Protein backbone atom coordinates (compact mmCIF):
# COMPACT_ATOMS: atom_id res chain seq x y z
CA UNK A 1 0.00 0.00 0.00
CA UNK A 2 2.89 2.31 0.84
CA UNK A 3 4.55 1.65 -2.52
CA UNK A 4 1.38 2.44 -4.37
CA UNK A 5 1.07 5.71 -2.50
CA UNK A 6 4.68 6.63 -3.30
CA UNK A 7 4.16 5.81 -6.97
CA UNK A 8 1.14 8.07 -7.03
CA UNK A 9 3.05 11.01 -5.60
CA UNK A 10 4.84 12.03 -8.85
CA UNK A 11 1.50 12.04 -10.70
CA UNK A 12 -0.02 14.24 -8.07
CA UNK A 13 2.86 16.66 -8.36
CA UNK A 14 2.47 16.84 -12.13
CA UNK A 15 -0.10 19.68 -12.17
CA UNK A 16 2.16 21.70 -9.90
CA UNK A 17 5.16 21.08 -12.15
CA UNK A 18 3.20 22.21 -15.22
CA UNK A 19 2.04 25.35 -13.44
CA UNK A 20 5.58 26.16 -12.30
CA UNK A 21 7.00 25.77 -15.80
CA UNK A 22 4.22 27.82 -17.36
CA UNK A 23 4.66 30.51 -14.72
CA UNK A 24 8.36 30.81 -15.43
CA UNK A 25 7.61 31.01 -19.15
CA UNK A 26 5.11 33.80 -18.63
CA UNK A 27 7.48 35.71 -16.39
CA UNK A 28 10.08 35.59 -19.14
CA UNK A 29 7.53 36.73 -21.74
CA UNK A 30 6.51 39.67 -19.57
CA UNK A 31 10.14 40.59 -19.12
CA UNK A 32 10.67 40.56 -22.85
CA UNK A 33 7.50 42.52 -23.51
CA UNK A 34 8.70 45.14 -21.06
CA UNK A 35 11.99 45.43 -22.92
CA UNK A 36 10.25 45.62 -26.27
CA UNK A 37 11.67 42.32 -27.45
CA UNK A 38 8.30 40.61 -27.61
CA UNK A 39 5.14 41.85 -29.24
CA UNK A 40 2.49 39.37 -30.32
CA UNK A 41 1.03 41.79 -32.85
CA UNK A 42 4.13 42.36 -34.99
CA UNK A 43 3.99 40.82 -38.41
CA UNK A 44 7.21 39.15 -39.54
CA UNK A 45 8.66 39.81 -42.95
CA UNK A 46 10.64 37.14 -44.73
CA UNK A 47 11.97 39.01 -47.72
CA UNK A 48 15.37 39.76 -46.26
CA UNK A 49 18.05 37.76 -48.06
CA UNK A 50 15.83 37.09 -51.06
CA UNK A 51 15.76 38.70 -54.50
CA UNK A 52 13.35 41.53 -55.25
CA UNK A 53 9.89 40.02 -55.94
CA UNK A 54 7.84 40.29 -59.12
CA UNK A 55 6.04 43.63 -58.97
CA UNK A 56 5.41 46.84 -60.84
CA UNK A 57 4.72 50.35 -59.59
CA UNK A 58 2.61 52.42 -61.99
CA UNK A 59 3.66 55.90 -63.14
CA UNK A 60 2.79 58.55 -60.56
CA UNK A 61 3.50 62.13 -61.67
CA UNK A 62 6.17 63.44 -61.19
CA UNK A 63 7.49 59.83 -61.06
CA UNK A 64 7.59 57.45 -64.01
CA UNK A 65 7.10 54.24 -62.05
CA UNK A 66 9.43 51.25 -61.93
CA UNK A 67 9.38 47.49 -61.65
CA UNK A 68 11.42 44.40 -60.80
CA UNK A 69 13.71 44.75 -63.78
CA UNK A 70 14.87 48.20 -62.64
CA UNK A 71 15.93 46.81 -59.26
CA UNK A 72 17.80 43.78 -60.44
CA UNK A 73 21.20 45.48 -60.89
CA UNK A 74 21.11 49.02 -59.54
CA UNK A 75 24.46 50.90 -59.69
CA UNK A 76 24.35 51.46 -55.93
CA UNK A 77 22.18 50.20 -53.02
CA UNK A 78 18.63 51.56 -53.13
CA UNK A 79 16.21 52.31 -50.29
CA UNK A 80 12.70 51.27 -51.35
CA UNK A 81 10.14 53.16 -49.26
CA UNK A 82 6.41 52.34 -49.13
CA UNK A 83 4.34 55.35 -48.05
CA UNK A 84 0.97 57.03 -48.49
CA UNK A 85 -0.35 60.59 -48.27
CA UNK A 86 -3.00 59.58 -45.72
CA UNK A 87 -0.45 58.03 -43.36
CA UNK A 88 0.69 60.25 -40.48
CA UNK A 89 3.94 58.41 -39.57
CA UNK A 90 4.94 58.73 -43.27
CA UNK A 91 4.71 62.50 -42.95
CA UNK A 92 6.74 62.30 -39.79
CA UNK A 93 9.56 60.37 -41.47
CA UNK A 94 9.85 62.75 -44.46
CA UNK A 95 12.58 64.94 -42.86
CA UNK A 96 14.68 61.82 -42.28
CA UNK A 97 14.23 60.81 -45.91
CA UNK A 98 15.34 64.31 -46.91
CA UNK A 99 18.45 63.81 -44.83
CA UNK A 100 19.18 60.55 -46.62
CA UNK A 101 18.65 62.25 -49.97
CA UNK A 102 21.15 64.92 -49.00
CA UNK A 103 23.57 62.10 -48.29
CA UNK A 104 23.14 60.87 -51.89
CA UNK A 105 21.16 57.74 -51.00
CA UNK A 106 18.79 56.81 -53.85
CA UNK A 107 15.27 56.49 -52.44
CA UNK A 108 12.62 54.88 -54.62
CA UNK A 109 9.12 55.51 -53.32
CA UNK A 110 5.95 53.47 -53.83
CA UNK A 111 2.70 55.26 -53.01
CA UNK A 112 0.33 52.66 -51.55
CA UNK A 113 -3.48 52.76 -51.95
CA UNK A 114 -3.54 56.43 -52.80
CA UNK A 115 -4.78 58.93 -55.37
CA UNK A 116 -2.80 61.13 -57.78
CA UNK A 117 -4.15 64.42 -56.48
CA UNK A 118 -3.48 63.47 -52.87
CA UNK A 119 0.07 62.42 -53.75
CA UNK A 120 0.71 65.76 -55.45
CA UNK A 121 -0.49 67.60 -52.36
CA UNK A 122 1.65 65.41 -50.08
CA UNK A 123 4.82 66.02 -52.10
CA UNK A 124 4.13 69.74 -52.28
CA UNK A 125 3.65 69.96 -48.54
CA UNK A 126 6.54 67.71 -47.49
CA UNK A 127 8.99 67.85 -50.32
CA UNK A 128 10.02 65.07 -52.69
CA UNK A 129 12.98 62.96 -51.51
CA UNK A 130 12.35 60.27 -54.10
CA UNK A 131 14.79 59.57 -56.93
CA UNK A 132 12.16 57.41 -58.55
CA UNK A 133 8.48 57.28 -57.73
CA UNK A 134 5.70 54.85 -58.51
CA UNK A 135 2.12 54.19 -57.41
CA UNK A 136 0.45 51.02 -56.16
CA UNK A 137 -3.25 51.90 -56.02
CA UNK A 138 -4.47 48.31 -55.73
CA UNK A 139 -1.79 47.12 -53.31
CA UNK A 140 -0.48 44.29 -55.52
CA UNK A 141 3.12 45.50 -55.19
CA UNK A 142 2.69 45.95 -51.44
CA UNK A 143 1.55 42.33 -51.02
CA UNK A 144 4.35 41.13 -53.28
CA UNK A 145 6.87 42.75 -50.94
CA UNK A 146 5.12 41.41 -47.80
CA UNK A 147 3.96 44.78 -46.47
CA UNK A 148 1.56 44.88 -43.53
CA UNK A 149 1.20 48.64 -43.24
CA UNK A 150 2.85 51.92 -44.16
CA UNK A 151 5.51 53.18 -43.88
CA UNK A 152 7.89 50.30 -44.46
CA UNK A 153 11.37 50.44 -45.99
CA UNK A 154 13.71 47.94 -47.66
CA UNK A 155 17.37 48.16 -48.63
CA UNK A 156 18.17 46.48 -51.96
CA UNK A 157 21.84 45.81 -52.76
CA UNK A 158 23.59 45.98 -56.12
CA UNK A 159 22.72 42.41 -57.08
CA UNK A 160 19.01 42.92 -56.45
CA UNK A 161 18.88 41.11 -53.11
CA UNK A 162 16.88 42.61 -50.26
CA UNK A 163 19.28 43.07 -47.36
CA UNK A 164 17.28 44.93 -44.72
CA UNK A 165 13.67 45.61 -43.78
CA UNK A 166 12.05 48.09 -41.42
CA UNK A 167 8.40 47.54 -40.48
CA UNK A 168 7.66 51.13 -39.46
CA UNK A 169 8.90 54.72 -39.81
CA UNK A 170 12.59 55.57 -39.88
CA UNK A 171 14.15 56.81 -36.69
CA UNK A 172 17.11 59.19 -36.24
CA UNK A 173 19.20 56.33 -34.85
CA UNK A 174 18.61 54.24 -37.96
CA UNK A 175 19.48 57.12 -40.26
CA UNK A 176 22.62 58.00 -38.26
CA UNK A 177 23.99 54.50 -37.56
CA UNK A 178 22.26 51.51 -39.15
CA UNK A 179 21.80 52.75 -42.70
CA UNK A 180 25.30 54.23 -43.19
CA UNK A 181 26.77 50.97 -41.91
CA UNK A 182 24.67 48.89 -44.27
CA UNK A 183 25.33 51.19 -47.20
CA UNK A 184 29.07 50.88 -46.62
CA UNK A 185 28.75 47.10 -46.37
CA UNK A 186 26.83 46.72 -49.60
CA UNK A 187 28.39 49.61 -51.56
Amino acid at each position, binding site marked *: *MQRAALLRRPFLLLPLACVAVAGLGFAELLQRAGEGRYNPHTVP*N*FMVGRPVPEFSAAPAPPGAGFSTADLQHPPQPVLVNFFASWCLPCQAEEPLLDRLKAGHVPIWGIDYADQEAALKGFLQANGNPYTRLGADPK*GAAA*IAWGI*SGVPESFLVDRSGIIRWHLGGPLTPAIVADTLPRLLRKYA
Partner: protein
Amino acid sequence: MARLFPLAAVLFVLLLAAPSFAAGSMLTAEQEARAEAIGSQLRCLVCQNETVEESSATLAANIRMVIREQVAAGRTNRQIMQWMTARYGDFIRLDPPFNRLTLLLWSMPVLAPAVGLGIAFAAGRRRRAPPPPLTEAEKARLAALLE
Protein backbone atom coordinates in the same frame (compact mmCIF):
# COMPACT_ATOMS: atom_id res chain seq x y z
CA MET B 1 -1.18 39.31 -94.22
CA ALA B 2 -3.42 42.35 -94.23
CA ARG B 3 -6.30 40.17 -93.09
CA LEU B 4 -4.36 39.07 -90.04
CA PHE B 5 -3.95 42.63 -88.84
CA PRO B 6 -7.53 43.18 -87.58
CA LEU B 7 -7.38 39.80 -85.84
CA ALA B 8 -4.07 40.72 -84.27
CA ALA B 9 -5.50 44.05 -83.19
CA VAL B 10 -8.46 42.35 -81.58
CA LEU B 11 -6.21 39.85 -79.81
CA PHE B 12 -3.93 42.66 -78.67
CA VAL B 13 -6.87 44.55 -77.17
CA LEU B 14 -8.08 41.40 -75.49
CA LEU B 15 -4.62 40.82 -74.07
CA LEU B 16 -4.53 44.32 -72.65
CA ALA B 17 -7.93 43.73 -71.13
CA ALA B 18 -6.87 40.37 -69.63
CA PRO B 19 -5.54 41.76 -66.33
CA SER B 20 -8.85 43.47 -65.70
CA PHE B 21 -10.63 40.16 -66.31
CA ALA B 22 -8.43 38.47 -63.78
CA ALA B 23 -8.73 41.23 -61.25
CA GLY B 24 -12.39 41.06 -60.54
CA SER B 25 -15.80 40.02 -61.54
CA MET B 26 -14.89 37.52 -64.20
CA LEU B 27 -14.15 34.58 -61.92
CA THR B 28 -16.41 31.57 -62.24
CA ALA B 29 -18.49 30.60 -59.24
CA GLU B 30 -16.15 27.72 -58.53
CA GLN B 31 -13.08 29.97 -58.67
CA GLU B 32 -14.78 32.50 -56.43
CA ALA B 33 -15.56 29.76 -53.92
CA ARG B 34 -11.94 28.63 -54.01
CA ALA B 35 -10.71 32.19 -53.50
CA GLU B 36 -13.06 32.63 -50.54
CA ALA B 37 -11.88 29.37 -49.01
CA ILE B 38 -8.25 30.45 -49.25
CA GLY B 39 -9.08 33.90 -47.88
CA SER B 40 -10.83 32.38 -44.86
CA GLN B 41 -7.63 30.60 -43.93
CA LEU B 42 -5.54 33.75 -43.86
CA ARG B 43 -5.30 36.18 -41.00
CA CYS B 44 -5.86 39.85 -41.72
CA LEU B 45 -2.62 41.55 -40.70
CA VAL B 46 -4.24 44.78 -39.65
CA CYS B 47 -7.31 43.57 -37.76
CA GLN B 48 -5.55 40.46 -36.61
CA ASN B 49 -8.66 38.93 -35.20
CA GLU B 50 -10.40 38.58 -38.55
CA THR B 51 -9.84 36.56 -41.66
CA VAL B 52 -8.81 38.24 -44.87
CA GLU B 53 -12.28 37.48 -46.28
CA GLU B 54 -14.14 39.25 -43.47
CA SER B 55 -11.89 42.20 -42.79
CA SER B 56 -12.68 45.65 -44.08
CA ALA B 57 -9.04 46.78 -43.91
CA THR B 58 -7.48 48.03 -47.14
CA LEU B 59 -4.64 45.55 -46.87
CA ALA B 60 -7.13 42.70 -46.61
CA ALA B 61 -8.91 43.94 -49.74
CA ASN B 62 -5.53 44.00 -51.49
CA ILE B 63 -4.79 40.44 -50.43
CA ARG B 64 -8.26 39.31 -51.56
CA MET B 65 -7.56 40.82 -54.97
CA VAL B 66 -4.16 39.12 -55.20
CA ILE B 67 -5.72 35.78 -54.28
CA ARG B 68 -8.34 36.14 -57.00
CA GLU B 69 -5.75 37.09 -59.56
CA GLN B 70 -3.73 34.03 -58.72
CA VAL B 71 -6.77 31.74 -58.73
CA ALA B 72 -7.75 33.07 -62.15
CA ALA B 73 -4.18 32.49 -63.33
CA GLY B 74 -4.67 28.84 -62.46
CA ARG B 75 -2.39 28.43 -59.47
CA THR B 76 -3.25 25.73 -56.95
CA ASN B 77 -4.34 26.43 -53.37
CA ARG B 78 -1.04 25.08 -52.14
CA GLN B 79 0.96 27.36 -54.39
CA ILE B 80 -1.00 30.42 -53.32
CA MET B 81 -0.57 29.58 -49.61
CA GLN B 82 3.13 29.07 -50.16
CA TRP B 83 3.36 32.42 -51.94
CA MET B 84 1.71 34.11 -48.97
CA THR B 85 3.75 32.36 -46.28
CA ALA B 86 6.95 33.08 -48.24
CA ARG B 87 6.27 36.75 -47.60
CA TYR B 88 4.57 36.77 -44.20
CA GLY B 89 5.57 33.51 -42.62
CA ASP B 90 3.28 31.05 -40.88
CA PHE B 91 1.83 34.00 -38.96
CA ILE B 92 -0.57 34.77 -41.78
CA ARG B 93 -2.03 31.26 -41.72
CA LEU B 94 -4.83 30.84 -39.20
CA ASP B 95 -4.25 27.11 -39.32
CA PRO B 96 -0.79 26.43 -37.91
CA PRO B 97 1.41 24.24 -40.09
CA PHE B 98 1.99 20.63 -39.20
CA ASN B 99 5.67 20.25 -38.36
CA ARG B 100 7.89 19.15 -35.49
CA LEU B 101 7.24 22.35 -33.58
CA THR B 102 3.47 22.01 -33.71
CA LEU B 103 3.39 18.27 -33.12
CA LEU B 104 2.17 18.71 -29.53
CA LEU B 105 -0.50 21.12 -30.69
CA TRP B 106 -1.98 18.92 -33.38
CA SER B 107 -1.76 15.71 -31.40
CA MET B 108 -3.51 17.17 -28.33
CA PRO B 109 -7.06 16.18 -29.40
CA VAL B 110 -5.92 12.56 -29.41
CA LEU B 111 -3.41 12.80 -26.58
CA ALA B 112 -5.72 14.42 -24.03
CA PRO B 113 -8.57 11.87 -24.14
CA ALA B 114 -6.01 9.03 -24.28
CA VAL B 115 -4.34 10.31 -21.13
CA GLY B 116 -7.74 10.81 -19.52
CA LEU B 117 -8.88 7.29 -20.33
CA GLY B 118 -5.55 5.94 -19.10
CA ILE B 119 -5.88 7.68 -15.75
CA ALA B 120 -9.49 6.54 -15.44
CA PHE B 121 -8.62 2.90 -16.08
CA ALA B 122 -5.58 2.95 -13.81
CA ALA B 123 -7.60 4.47 -11.00
CA GLY B 124 -10.43 2.02 -11.60
CA ARG B 125 -8.10 -0.97 -11.53
CA ARG B 126 -6.40 0.20 -8.37
CA ARG B 127 -9.71 0.55 -6.64
CA ARG B 128 -10.87 -2.84 -7.79
CA ALA B 129 -7.71 -4.56 -6.53
CA PRO B 130 -8.68 -7.00 -3.75
CA PRO B 131 -7.20 -6.31 -0.32
CA PRO B 132 -3.90 -8.08 0.37
CA PRO B 133 -4.25 -11.54 1.99
CA LEU B 134 -4.26 -11.74 5.79
CA THR B 135 -1.05 -12.50 7.64
CA GLU B 136 -0.87 -15.33 10.20
CA ALA B 137 -1.15 -12.93 13.13
CA GLU B 138 -4.18 -11.26 11.56
CA LYS B 139 -5.80 -14.64 10.92
CA ALA B 140 -5.35 -15.56 14.58
CA ARG B 141 -6.86 -12.27 15.67
CA LEU B 142 -9.81 -12.80 13.36
CA ALA B 143 -10.39 -16.29 14.76
CA ALA B 144 -10.27 -14.91 18.31
CA LEU B 145 -12.78 -12.17 17.45
CA LEU B 146 -15.18 -14.56 15.82
CA GLU B 147 -15.29 -16.76 18.87
